[in-house]
């Protein structure tokens, strides 16, 4: 495998790790915190709401990194591969 392909594979693997790991954990944590915040009196909810906001910023940033790591098909496949994929 060429150095370039190794790099592309690693980029893909990293994106998948982020998507399946930290991104899922952060997003579900935010959703669960939303529920808890909604059940608390406003004065007690304030700080937790702030924490949720910070976590959501991290989730958004992770999402952006995942998107940037995603490669368009044309960059990771040869013309022959794209052709055969289109035919199948």
């Amino acid at each position, binding site marked *: 495998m060429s150095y370039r392909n190794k790099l592309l594979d690693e980029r893909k693997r990293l994106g998948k790790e982020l*998507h*399946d790991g930290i*991104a*899922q*954990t*952060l*997003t*579900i*944590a*935010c*959703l*669960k915190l*939303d*529920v808890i915040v*909604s059940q608390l009196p406003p004065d007690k909810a304030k700080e937790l709401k702030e924490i949720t906001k910070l976590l*959501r910023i991290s*989730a*958004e940033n992770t*999402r952006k990194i*995942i*998107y940037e790591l995603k490669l*368009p*098909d*044309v960059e990771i496949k040869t*013309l022959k591969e*794209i*052709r055969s994929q*289109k035919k199948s």
Partner: protein
Amino acid sequence: MIKILIVDDHALFRQGLKEIFSSRKDIKIIGEASDSKECLTVYKKIRPDIVLMDISLPDKDGLETTKEILKINPKQKVIVLSMYDDEKHIFEAFQNGAVGYFVKTKTVDELFKIIHSVYEEGTSVPRSLTSKLLEGIKRHALPQQRFKLTEKEIKILQLLKQGFSNKEIARQITTSEKTVKNHLASIFQKLAVENRAQAIVKSMEEKII
């Protein structure tokens, strides 16, 4: 009571959603699946009002699975769950039959709103996604119109893809080799490419052919 089937390969996310919905009287999870195959097996046994479908599943993606479900029940309401909020993913979800789209980083209130809108009104496009959906339609719907390619130019691109030479293309569309060259020059200009290979790649990438 809105009956829901959750399809997501992330066990943590499924479990989290179950806990969130368990505190509500208006929504009930009646089934769950971790991949496309399991989803179709479960779906045939239950009749949810709404399917919450993760866009990326390990065996077959969520959009293909949505199409499979709609083959079984064309009226099924499917909301796509996704980490992506770009116009391509949003457009493709609606194009494949989804009636709602939830970006996982959004709030739980937005999720509840989408579920209720879909249940009560049949569809839901959150205001935050409307412009991206419209952009998606503009960019991805009928790409040949976007590039202003003529039917003949599309036919030539299809023949190029099959590996035909200019002479062979001319024979296929009953014209002269010179006319084919003129068409190709026009195609290259419209697609903003410099050669045949780039024209094939771009037209496939843009789903023109």
